[in-house]
């Protein structure tokens, strides 16, 4: 848990390949390339590159789709008994996505502004816009301390501070609310800590997030997102969410599925055993492909009545 996982290394290798190719492409186009240093800037308009991960990031994972999430048994119980109707509670209707997820989907296209001290003109932070539900984030760069670990208020966006390290902007976020890692009920505890590594390669901005969660994750959850510079993009001021009355509901109404519920949608769609969809650290490693293959063979045999 405390060490960067093999999954992190796989992501890094992938990004190195991506970065190198991108570097060469930019060189060929003779464009100025910001050297990775403490001088680069992430402000501006950025459009999300949603490619092979579109399904995970746009419609979002369906009920029971936990493959690739290093979740533990407690998280699995929470996710399997999570009923999406709970978002109809008046007190949840205006919830934005939490920081643990908000840069993951849907898209988002970002507008990032610099925060400048009005007196000294010193660059003291970044403000991001464009996430679902106006979950705008602030990243402080002026060395201010995080709130009290025991007693500080938690927010959907947590509290983020950044520092330049080895040519990257390293952002540490604490004090996030009880949220989700996916829009299908995979829970994120308020004691999670998210470390984001931001870096630029020419017109590309990449962020790798590394989340440790002592309550719900067996190993760190590592995901990457990339944006492309897009100056004409408009990120409008979206209307704030507001709870509305749609149907009468009793005060204190808390919908949830009973213990033991298994969501079979993904398993049935892909023709695999439900065990293949239930996540866990084992499912993030390449070796799991062989397990999946065996499960599929067994599933086919069972279907054929052998």
């Amino acid at each position, binding site marked *: 848990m405390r060490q*960067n996982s093999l999954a*992190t290394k796989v992501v*890094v290798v992938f*990004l*190195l390949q991506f*970065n*190198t190719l991108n*570097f*060469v492409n930019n060189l060929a186009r003779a464009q100025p390339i910001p050297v*990775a240093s403490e001088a680069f800037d992430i402000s501006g308009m950025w459009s999300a590159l949603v490619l092979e991960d579109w399904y995970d990031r746009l419609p979002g994972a369906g009920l029971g789709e936990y493959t690739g999430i290093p979740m533990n048994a*407690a*998280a699995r*119980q929470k996710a399997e*008994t999570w009923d999406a109707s709970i978002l109809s*509670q008046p*007190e*949840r209707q*205006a919830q*934005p996505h939490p920081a643990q997820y908000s840069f993951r989907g849907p898209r988002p296209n970002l507008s990032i502004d610099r925060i400048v001290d009005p007196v000294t003109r010193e660059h003291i932070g970044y403000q991001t816009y464009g996430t679902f*539900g*106006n*979950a705008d984030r602030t990243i402080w760069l002026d060395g201010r301390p995080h709130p*009290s670990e*025991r*007693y*500080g*208020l*938690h*927010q*959907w966006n947590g509290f983020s501070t950044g520092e330049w390290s*080895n*040519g*990257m902007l*390293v952002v*540490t976020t*604490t004090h996030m*609310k*009880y949220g989700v890692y996916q829009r299908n009920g995979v*829970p994120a*505890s*308020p*004691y*999670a*800590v998210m*470390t984001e*590594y931001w*870096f630029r390669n020419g017109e590309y901005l990449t962020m790798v997030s*590394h989340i*440790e969660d*002592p*309550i*719900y994750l067996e190993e*760190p959850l590592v995901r990457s997102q990339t944006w492309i510079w897009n100056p004409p993009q408009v990120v409008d001021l979206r209307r*704030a969410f507001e709870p509305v009355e749609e149907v009468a509901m009793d*005060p*204190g109404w*808390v919908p*949830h599925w*009973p*213990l033991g519920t298994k969501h079979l949608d993904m398993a049935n769609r892909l023709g695999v055993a439900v065990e293949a969809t239930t996540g866990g650290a084992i499912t993030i490693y390449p070796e799991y492909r062989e397990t999946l293959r065996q499960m599929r063979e067994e599933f086919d045999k069972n279907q054929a009545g052998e």
Partner: protein
Amino acid sequence: MALKNTIFCRLFFSVSIPVISAFLVQPTLAQRPDFPSITSDEIEVLPVQGSITMIATGGSNIAVMVGELGLIVVDTGNFEASANVADAIRELSSLPPRYIINTSVLPSHLAGNEVISEIGGVEALIGLNQDVGIPIVGHANGLSLLVAEFIDAIPYEVWPNSTFFSEHKALYLNGEPIEILHQPAAITQSDVLVHFRGSDVLVTGDIFDTTSYPHFYPEYGGSLQGLIDALNSIIEIAVPEFNQQGGTLIIPGHGRIASESDVVEYRDMVTIIRDRVQLMIDDGLSFEEVLAAHPSLEYDGIYGHDSGEWTTRIFLEAVYAELL
């Protein structure tokens, strides 16, 4: 070819080394925080909003309203921390407390009453006789409880001396209305919520506790259902500012400053566990069978305890006993 490989290697390492080295910066370790014990004298002072400051102790959280006409102190924590609490209050203001309000008569909430009420200057400010002391406000059900259960354990000097027996009491100080709302059968029979309407801060006592499953006392008139009702009352009172956060801020009995959505998570947790246990009882399961089914598994890492006075097992036993 060799030249091409050389260029590629230079490019590769020029990009990869910063990337790899960045990952050598170890992330901050995530953990569930430890809290001081009830015998600790440790305190932590945090501004909340408006005129309200929170002083956290190992006994309970304390809310202090500071204004030009004096202070209101809600709960006074454990006795061991009370000298430090008094010092912290003196640093917040040179004015004395005008009222102490107790959200409960449990010792962890009122043990510091005497020390805090002795913070000087009351006579100079409002002409009170020092011997009379300041009003210690609490619900009358608390007095009944003190007489019946704590008469030898809790000294008379810290008992509430200004009680009310209705469901609602209101005060006005420092330009701000303060509502005291009785919750009849939550943690005990004597719990109250304290709402500072101007500052928009709600003090809940142990009805809401971010560090533990709710510790309700059926033997003192508390109940699971009364607790859920009280949590729903908190949600009804609180108004978030934007994105289900901000607005009304909430000081729990223990743990971190919160907003409405944190109470919603807590209410949902208690309600879901209640529903699960009830379903198992209806199916004829014994308590040990219920325990083996792990009805609180996903919440144990956040609220559960394996040792101490209120373990996960004891909490589930209390839930089972009430629903049986």
